[in-house]
């Protein structure tokens, strides 16, 4: 008896689904153990100890001593500041490079390309000194200012502007529409897919950033969720695994939602212009 194509396809789907579930099993482990009390995790877990002890206590107790939601809020605010600033700055420059003629255009363009080659980690130390000397430690501005300019978003916006029909720009110019108005009323609204891609890339990147925030955010009121999470992992003297998993779950909700909502834009943003061919 041979299988129909339909059956073959179903089996293929189930096999792939199982492999994918195994691949993301760390997340299930995290979720399950976030509902097991800490003291039950000081022995090798068995299915029985897990199932018979499920409780929401970890969440309630850790929220009393650790302002997890405040940390998440800080991360969110930082991500939004970076997205707004970088999109604004990049759109302006991208417009100039796409449509305008000006002196040393190629030089400025090359300069931006060169800047993109400098790894951010290498300038971290000196940037830290600069930000400290500006008195920006422990401020939202200090946490975000180094990410205001970004080559990648500039190139993505420029690509998007260049793909708009040239006739539209010419017609608008003939009708007396100036560059700034054209940018705000036509170029930007017509580039929403690219803006979405840039935003989701920056959002996930900023939400995950760790090195810069631990340097600049020295007081707990400005801790990001990554700092809060990491401080708990590093507290090896009194490991509280259940509560740790609860914080991990809470820290994952926002970026996972953003990923699921913006997946298509994220993927197009990642692959657009990243690879030739």
């Amino acid at each position, binding site marked *: 008896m041979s299988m129909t194509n339909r059956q073959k396809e179903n089996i293929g789907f189930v096999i792939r689904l199982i492999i994918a579930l195994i691949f993301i099993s760390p997340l299930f482990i995290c979720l399950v153990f976030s509902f097991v009390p800490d003291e039950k995790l000081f022995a090798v877990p068995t299915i029985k100890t897990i199932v018979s002890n499920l409780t929401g206590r970890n969440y309630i107790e850790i929220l009393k001593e650790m302002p997890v939601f405040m940390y998440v809020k800080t991360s969110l605010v930082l991500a939004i500041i970076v997205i707004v600033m970088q999109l604004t700055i990049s759109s302006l420059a991208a417009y100039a490079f796409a449509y305008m003629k000006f002196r040393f255009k190629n030089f400025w363009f090359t300069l931006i390309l060169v*800047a993109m080659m400098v790894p951010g980690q290498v300038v971290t130390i000196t940037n830290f000194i600069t930000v400290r000397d500006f008195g920006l430690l422990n401020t939202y501005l200090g946490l975000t200012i180094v990410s205001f300019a970004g080559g990648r978003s500039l190139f993505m916006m420029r690509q998007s502007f260049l793909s708009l029909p040239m006739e539209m720009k010419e017609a608008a110019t003939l009708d007396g529409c100036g560059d700034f108005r054209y940018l705000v009323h036509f170029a930007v609204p017509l580039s929403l897919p690219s803006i979405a891609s840039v935003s989701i890339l920056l959002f996930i990147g900023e939400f995950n950033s760790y090195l810069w925030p631990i340097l600049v955010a020295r007081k707990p009121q400005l801790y990001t969720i990554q*700092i809060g*999470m990491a401080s708990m992992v590093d507290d090896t003297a009194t490991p509280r695994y259940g509560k740790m998993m609860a914080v991990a779950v809470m820290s994952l909700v926002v970026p996972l939602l953003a990923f699921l909502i913006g997946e298509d834009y994220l993927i197009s943003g990642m692959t657009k212009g990243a690879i030739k061919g």
Partner: protein
Amino acid sequence: MRSKSENGFNWLALLFVSPVIIFLTVFTFYPFVRSIVMTFFVTDSLGNPGMFVGLRIWKKVLSSSEFKVSLGTTFKYSLAKGVLTFCLAMLMAFLCTKKTKRSKVYQTMFALPIAIASAPICAIVTYVFCRYGVFNAITGRTEAWLALSKARFWIIVLSSVWSSSGSSFIYLLVGFRNVPDELIECANLDGCGPVRRFFQIFIPIASPQIFFVIFLNILSAFKGFAIIKILVGNVEAPEVTTLILKLYQYAFVRDRYEIACVYGLILAVVIFVVSRIQFMVEKKVVFYQ
């Protein structure tokens, strides 16, 4: 088209470009030059340059054994991470080459690590590999794995592999999906099996993406900080103390900014050299349609 630039300055264009130029100057070019300058001076605990010492700090760092160990560690870690991420992502992308109505379900799951930050990954790993963790529950062992240096190295590699496999998967998937359906059908008609199909059709057509992913992972491992830092904590762990960790320790734990800058610049040189190699090899091995 009207252009204001023909006789003179286009002020508006300059206004549009200036923010990005200013920010890149202040936070990329200036700090880069400043960190070069700093390596020629002994700095105080705030990072202000004091006495000029020429190349003495460079000589001291380059001849120290901790630097050599750290450089070796960086390459070992990067290579392990690069190769393993690539293999895992290849496998996942190959499973997803065929686009069906339901393929988006497992595709999304394979891409999911993109959204997951290093700190929660470290939290999960810390629990899974602790003395009473899931790993020991499954294998029946009793070790606290993160306290063993060799196991710790591989746990850190594994965590970074998982963390970057999502994005590598996406890049490779785009490459595999570039293979035209007709080509696969032709190959099937000619009696070409799955293994041959993989090596003679998918790999050549996806070669730009494959190549990109290999180097992407090696380069990102050079810069990988969070996972190592969080999993190691404040313990001395030379087996995972890469250049970027040295940079962090010298600058922000020991307040020796000038030494940290030397490590940073060496890291920049390593990254630059590897990117040049990528650029040169790409022309020879990558097949463009």
